[in-house]
């Protein structure tokens, strides 16, 4: 257990692996649990308010319930609640290692942050390059899975989501993850092409559990998972600082918009589902997205790790009907 290093969002995972640790994305541990609500309940028992993001409460609950002793907390470039989360974890005796993505995308500041992380984890720099080389192979496979989602259309939106979102920690073992991804690619080559309306999913990964299945059930398929794809670092830069400078997610809405618009075009996306988490500051960014994107946008909000509510289902189904008519040239 001592070798586990938890983290609150994607960090330069190469550094953690090179230090001989097992990286662990706390979000993933929370959401794949058989009963994720227990982590939220733990946080609320410890005094977290009802009216706040349940991802944050889930992360806290995971750390406490699973006795994780060391957590990298991303103070800038992710969630506005992380500072308070880091403080309470520290107060509870957990070692917290702050990491920040500079909002202004300053190369020197990011370089310094990565160096600080290397120092914190006492990483032998000589071990970093071989790890980076091997991880590049994993990311190459993930990029192929992503391409097979929108180009060959043999990967479902849900599969795409899972492969890319898990890349933040590679399930704690990048060599095994590479083998798993290769096996997956080999297993899907003979699949039939997926039909239906092409949807782009933007925003943080969903807390609701059946979104992708529902989208597929009404005749659409997600061909782009914005943030999850970013977690998989689709930029093959040799330099670690450059790689994490190109990563769009932490650097605000305008850096994300460039990526989203490019992918809408490249993937022939017919409509966008913008997911926002209840009580998240990112709901404000929705205004800019809706006014900027060139395809129809529907915004859905999730709160708890449960199935979609009926009204959200209706909205998604009507959205897909609308896009289908439009795609048929009837609009």
């Amino acid at each position: 257990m001592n070798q586990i290093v938890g983290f609150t969002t994607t960090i330069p995972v190469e550094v953690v692996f090179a230090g001989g640790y097992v990286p662990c994305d706390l979000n993933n541990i929370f959401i794949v649990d058989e009963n994720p609500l227990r982590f939220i309940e733990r946080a609320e028992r410890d005094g977290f308010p009802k009216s706040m993001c349940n991802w944050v409460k889930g992360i806290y609950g995971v750390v406490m319930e699973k006795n994780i002793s060391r957590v990298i907390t991303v103070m800038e470039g992710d969630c506005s609640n992380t500072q308070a989360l880091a403080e309470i974890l520290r107060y509870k005796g957990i070692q917290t290692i702050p990491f920040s993505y500079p909002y202004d995308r300053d190369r020197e500041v990011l370089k310094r942050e990565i160096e600080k992380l290397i120092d914190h984890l006492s990483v032998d720099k000589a071990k970093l390059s071989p790890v980076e080389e091997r991880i590049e192979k994993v990311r190459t496979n993930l990029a192929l899975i992503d391409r097979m989602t929108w180009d060959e259309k043999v990967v479902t939106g849900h599969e795409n989501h899972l492969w890319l979102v898990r890349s933040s920690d590679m399930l704690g073992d990048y060599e095994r993850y590479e083998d798993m991804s290769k096996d997956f690619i080999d297993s899907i080559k003979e699949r039939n092409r997926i039909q239906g309306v092409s949807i782009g999913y933007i925003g943080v990964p969903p807390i609701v559990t059946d979104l992708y299945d529902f989208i597929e059930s009404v005749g659409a398929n997600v061909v782009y998972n914005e943030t999850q794809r970013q977690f998989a670092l689709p930029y093959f830069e040799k330099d670690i600082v450059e790689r994490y400078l190109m990563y769009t997610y932490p650097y605000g809405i305008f850096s994300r918009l460039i990526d989203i618009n490019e992918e809408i075009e490249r993937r022939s996306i017919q409509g966008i589902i913008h997911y926002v988490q209840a009580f998240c500051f990112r709901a404000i960014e929705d205004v800019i997205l809706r006014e900027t994107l060139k395809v129809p946008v529907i915004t859905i909000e999730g709160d708890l790790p449960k199935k979609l509510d009926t009204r959200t289902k209706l909205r998604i189904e009507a959205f897909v009907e609308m896009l289908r008519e439009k795609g048929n040239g009837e609009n």
Partner: protein
Amino acid sequence: MLVAGIDIGSITTEALLFDKEKGILGYTILQTGADSKKTAEIALEKVLADPAKNASDVSYIISTGCGRKRAAFAKEAITEITCIAKGVNYLFPEARTIIDIGGQDTKVIRVNERGRVVEFEMNDKCAAGTGRFIEVMARALNVELDKIGEISLSHKKDLTISSICTVFAESEVISLVSEGEELEDILYGIHRAIADRTMGLINRLGGVQKDVIMAGGVAKNIGVVKALEKVMDTSLKIYVEPQIVGALGAAILALEKVS
């Protein structure tokens, strides 16, 4: 050629029979109740009995509304957003904005000249600002539901109900009563709150585009209609029976399927 549409809503269920040549042949409106499947069957039976037809005479049936998947006799289920747009387009071809306020949903739909949905907005998870909201307020004020619209028209004050959450608004309304505010002023405040919330949805679609049509059961509440017209600064067009628009759209879509 005969087709039918059935709209199984949270509060009422409407069945409508439509003929390619003659248009609307008849319709029926029932309270949905606890067994929406059964109600849908009864509604269809009633509407068929009215012009003395058999189910076998009907070429295609489409269901819509929140209970749309409960109608086993329907050949297809289509969301009420698509159906309302189609129904309104049949009645008002010049419609570009539709406001539909039903039992638990408020929808604003931007529609083109062919009755296709271009964009839409809808209330999110809670039923604030919908028919249910009005029902709760009417109960809190001990006023009959079908009277509150008329009563609110004689308001003298522009009272504001600042909470739109049904539970909080109910407390606020009770406080206003205990402070001695007049019934008509409170009712106006309630209708104004609904209108403001609906205007928020309209603004998310880029503002009012004429003609604006109102549908759904709440269109029968003159207080809400007037409050909406005031905040939008334009008049609303309303079909004589605004509750059947979804079922009508379903029937027209059914006709398109078989034509």
